[in-house]
């Protein structure tokens, strides 16, 4: 197996890893602002892709508009979820929050299945589906889109959190909610915003991924779980770690499947998760303090 194979593993790994990273980023944004792990994050990714398919089919408005509409719609859904299902339990125990977000993810999946059916759907590639070859490895134009959009999003989020007042407000909430409240930051608004942004990020990930992987009502489960693993791998609470964790996970999966065994490919993400939890729970780039009992 030559260099071109290794390069191919690397390209596939980075492509898929970017999506894991975007999903992990969604987890991190909500966690940072609220301390909640939103198990429904994977469904935002699913909705982005699935809604694009149906807006394209039903409204016939062309790909770019359908995609835009789908991302906006998913963000609104994210806001609705926060307002109606998360806010009532926000002060409650961690267990309750975990259970509610799991319930939300199941509910969203069930509703999607009822409305759109159980079929698999595909979106057209953004710029054609002819692969480009590079040193013996093939790279799809869509993969370049995925990488480019992911980098742009990371940049945009960084600007948002460091330069805008809303971003700084959200960061303040993640450090200390009471203090933020005291200086006049609307904590409720910040929480809502965090859900909207997470949904936005997830949906964009879903949209750029669907031409490559197709979509159906239940793609959110595995994506969510792996994105979550990526989050832990990078260190819960660290946005850079989340993105890096995603890419690392994607590459490990790709090489693992190609070099070791394809049967256990899915297990890689979770084995790494378990090992890290046992050995270094704060993750590879972990910032958050982990208290020992």
């Amino acid at each position: 197996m030559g260099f071109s194979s290794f390069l191919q593993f690397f390209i596939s790994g980075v492509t898929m890893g970017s999506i894991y990273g975007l999903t992990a980023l969604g987890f991190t944004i909500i966690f940072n602002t609220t301390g909640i792990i939103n198990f429904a994050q994977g469904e935002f990714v699913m909705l982005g892709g699935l809604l694009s398919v149906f807006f394209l089919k039903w409204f016939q408005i062309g790909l770019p508009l359908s995609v835009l509409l789908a991302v906006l719609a998913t963000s609104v859904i994210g806001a609705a979820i926060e307002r109606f299902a998360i806010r009532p339990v926000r002060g409650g125990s961690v267990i309750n929050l975990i259970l509610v977000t799991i319930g939300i993810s199941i509910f969203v999946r069930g509703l999607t299945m009822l409305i759109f059916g159980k079929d698999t759907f595909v979106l057209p590639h953004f710029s054609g589906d002819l692969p480009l070859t590079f040193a013996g490895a093939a790279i799809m134009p869509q993969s370049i889109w995925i990488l480019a959009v992911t980098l742009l999003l990371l940049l945009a989020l960084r600007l948002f959190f460091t330069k805008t007042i809303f971003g700084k407000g959200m960061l303040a909430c993640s450090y200390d909610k009471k203090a933020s409240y005291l200086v006049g930051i609307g904590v409720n608004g910040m929480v809502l915003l965090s859900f909207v942004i997470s949904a936005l990020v997830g949906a964009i990930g879903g949209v750029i991924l669907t031409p490559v992987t197709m979509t159906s009502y239940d793609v959110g489960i595995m994506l969510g779980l792996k994105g979550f693993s990526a989050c832990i791998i990078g260190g819960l609470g660290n946005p850079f770690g989340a993105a890096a964790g995603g890419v690392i996970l994607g590459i490990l999966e790709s090489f693992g499947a190609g070099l070791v065994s394809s049967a256990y490919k899915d297990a890689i993400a979770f084995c790494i998760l378990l090992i890290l939890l046992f050995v270094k729970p704060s993750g590879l780039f972990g910032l958050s303090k982990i208290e020992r009992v």
Partner: protein
Amino acid sequence: MLAVLGFALFLLGLPWLVTNDYYINLLTLSLNHAIIVVGLNMLMGYAGQVSLGHAAFYGLGAYTTAILTTRYFFPLPLGMASGILTAGVVACLIGIPTLKLKGHYLAMATLGFGVIVYIFFNETIGLTGGPSGFTGVSRLHILGYKFTDRSYYYLESLVLTAVVLLSLNIIHSRIGRALRAIHSSETASQIAGIDIAKYKIFVFVLSALFAGLAGVLYAHNIAFVAPSSFGFNFSVELVTMVVLGGMANVWGAVIGALFLTILPEFLRVFENIEILLYGAILIVFVIFLPEGIAGAIAKFFNLLKTKRTDGTGGR
């Protein structure tokens, strides 16, 4: 303890009322689920931890006994004991590192663990038969007596009663008090000298043992095991049963398990909506009915009691 006796008698007497084998088998399955849920209920209600991979312990019990007794000709009791022990040992291995950490790390660890175990069951075809399942498991038999559908029902009833009894005893013992202390305030319990990690691990392993026990009974009832029964979906179903019945409530666990196993049979019309319903139950009950059905029933009876003692109905 009177309640437990009444419960046992009720279960044992049920077949006289409900004679059709279809209902008996359905009940057997729900009792089997209840055994798992009682343990999970204690973990979630008293230790305040969630396990999102409990189906894996169920599966470990079932597969271990199936493989050992069929392929390696282990005698039945030894195979079954091995199944239960395997679940317990694995729980120790996972619980000890993760329960030492503060926060929701057990949830994540059990999530990952559940998926890994499912993949293991599915891929090690040589050992487990893979996705098509493992056939040829022997039906339970003791000293020559082969259990029938009906006698299996009695067996599960007795096992469940024993499990309920054990759980109630633990809750009313020193261990239970420690658990409740931990549940209400970990900081205070620490100050009082309670070894939090030790108690959490104890409950986690106990809940895994119960799950393994149920798995072992399941394997020798159906005489067949397949990975699809032990995936993430079932883990979530178990958690939903706990929430529905009421956390930190042994009877709630039984109610939740019976409800969610039996009700869908009668609501077969609502097949497509089932996923939706599970999600809705989780959301609604956590937000509005955290005490679950058992709690609602208890509140209702309290209401009646106060009305009666008030006499004139006013103060």
